[in-house]
């Protein structure tokens, strides 16, 4: 029975994840269009039904699937094929640690809306995001093309640099909520600060939040930080890929956006918590309560998680369509001379504050 429940959870999480990924490509097109006073892709239709180009992702997918699966003769065939799958797999697996909602009770059984609730959930996600680098290095190296290799090296250097800031920015957060278990971190964020402010990570760790946001944007390797790829002029690590393999790399990018959004939500914006909402309805700090049925609370909380994730996806796409690309030395300067020292300051400051409070 447990296996069945876990299977259902895996399938539901993956369906959620991949559908959201598909529609992020739509959102990317539409949002960039609206930001630039355009309309965006709206011609894909089924029987003349257009509905704002909502079928566009499917048209793209069909196109990519039916393209020729091409491996250049000079590439290392096995590794060349393996690279996109590695890159895809290590991002896709991150979803297993994300808490979508509170525990639900069905027929005397407690089911957590999370695939694996490990006590090292945060480390697991960070580790898997780091392992994704192998996909990039491998694709650059296995393509056996010097420009791909250069792109792969640029990607590896960038991701490893920002990995440091990414990890260090979360140390302060781990000190505040003394846990690495994502579900417990979310549970803690349901409490109140000074009696009225939700105890969210963004209020407790504002500096940590900003550093994490920047480092995470660099991790997604999209436009302000797109030096590994540089689709407009420099040549990136997936030069020798086409069709569905290239599509996997592109999907990895979008899935990273979702994972980063889910992490931002879970760690800094209360996960599925709604401000002042307990397990039985709202308890307002100015007095007054609003009782709700248990199932309604769960539904609202899952909805709250989704809305927060959508918002951060929207924000990341907005950032991607606002800023030009960093120069490589600026990128390294920002990583090593700004984010890492700031995150160290954040750790020391958090430690001192915690000592004073205790």
């Amino acid at each position, binding site marked *: 029975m447990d296996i069945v429940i876990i299977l259902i959870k895996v399938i539901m999480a993956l369906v959620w994840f991949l559908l959201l990924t598909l529609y992020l490509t739509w959102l990317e097109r539409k949002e960039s269009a*609206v930001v630039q*006073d*355009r309309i965006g892709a709206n011609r894909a239709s089924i029987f003349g039904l257009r509905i704002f180009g909502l079928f566009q992702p499917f048209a793209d997918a069909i196109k990519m699937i039916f393209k020729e699966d091409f491996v250049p003769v000079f590439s290392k065939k096995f590794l060349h094929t393996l690279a996109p799958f590695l890159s895809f797999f290590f991002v896709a697996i991150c979803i297993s640690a994300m808490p979508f909602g509170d525990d639900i009770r069905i027929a005397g059984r407690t089911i957590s809306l999370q695939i694996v609730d490990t006590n090292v959930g945060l480390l697991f996600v960070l580790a898997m995001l780091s392992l994704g680098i192998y996909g990039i290095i491998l694709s650059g190296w296995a393509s056996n093309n010097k420009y791909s290799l250069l792109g792969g090296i640029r990607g590896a250097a960038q991701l490893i640099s920002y990995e440091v800031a990414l990890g260090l920015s979360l140390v302060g957060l781990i000190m505040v909520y003394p846990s690495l278990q994502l579900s417990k971190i979310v549970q803690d964020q349901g409490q109140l600060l000074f009696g009225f402010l939700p105890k969210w990570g963004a209020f407790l760790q504002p500096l940590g939040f900003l550093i994490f946001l920047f480092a995470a944007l660099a991790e997604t390797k999209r436009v302000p930080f797109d030096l590994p790829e540089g689709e407009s002029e420099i040549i990136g690590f997936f030069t020798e890929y086409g069709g569905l393999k290239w599509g996997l790399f592109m999907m990895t990018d979008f899935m990273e956006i979702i994972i980063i959004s889910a992490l931002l939500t879970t760690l800094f914006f209360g996960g599925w918590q709604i401000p002042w909402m307990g397990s039985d309805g709202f308890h307002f700090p100015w007095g007054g309560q609003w009782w709700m049925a248990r199932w309604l609370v769960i539904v609202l909380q899952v909805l709250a998680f989704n809305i927060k994730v959508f918002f951060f996806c929207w924000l990341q796409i*907005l950032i991607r369509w606002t*800023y030009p690309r960093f120069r490589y030395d600026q990128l390294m300067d920002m990583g090593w001379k*700004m984010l890492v020292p*700031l995150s160290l300051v954040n750790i020391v400051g958090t430690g001192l504050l915690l000592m004073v409070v205790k």
Partner: protein
Amino acid sequence: MIKALGYFWELIKGSLITARHFIVNMWFHTLKLFGIKTKRSGAVTIQYPEQKKALASRYRSLQRLMRRDDLKPRCVSCMLCVTVCPSECIYVEAAEDPDPEIQKYPAKFVIDLSRCCFCGFCVEACPEDAIRMDTGKIDLSQLDRRDLVYDLDKLLE
């Protein structure tokens, strides 16, 4: 690092500009979705096959041949347009007209649009105002090149 932090405010200002564009444009798109007419729209795009921009009054589009009051073509086969045409796409074959005032009429008048560069010299050269480029037709693409050769009947409409 201090300098880099100074840029931070500029970064926020930049993203506020794009966010403003997003919100303002979405507002007009939403109004349009509910059928509310507004002065400006959410996008500057003109959705071409459905919406067409008005052509300028002197725009040079597909040629047409003019007719006299008795519906015969005005052309007197003087060959001026054939001479002036830089892409040599006009072919005229003259025939004798019984009316001594007219003397000649075109037995054949062919324009090969696949060669025409729409310079409008033929219109300038014509002494009889027999050819004009004011039909406003600009979507002239064909699947076969032979369909682009317009003869007298087609040009007279």
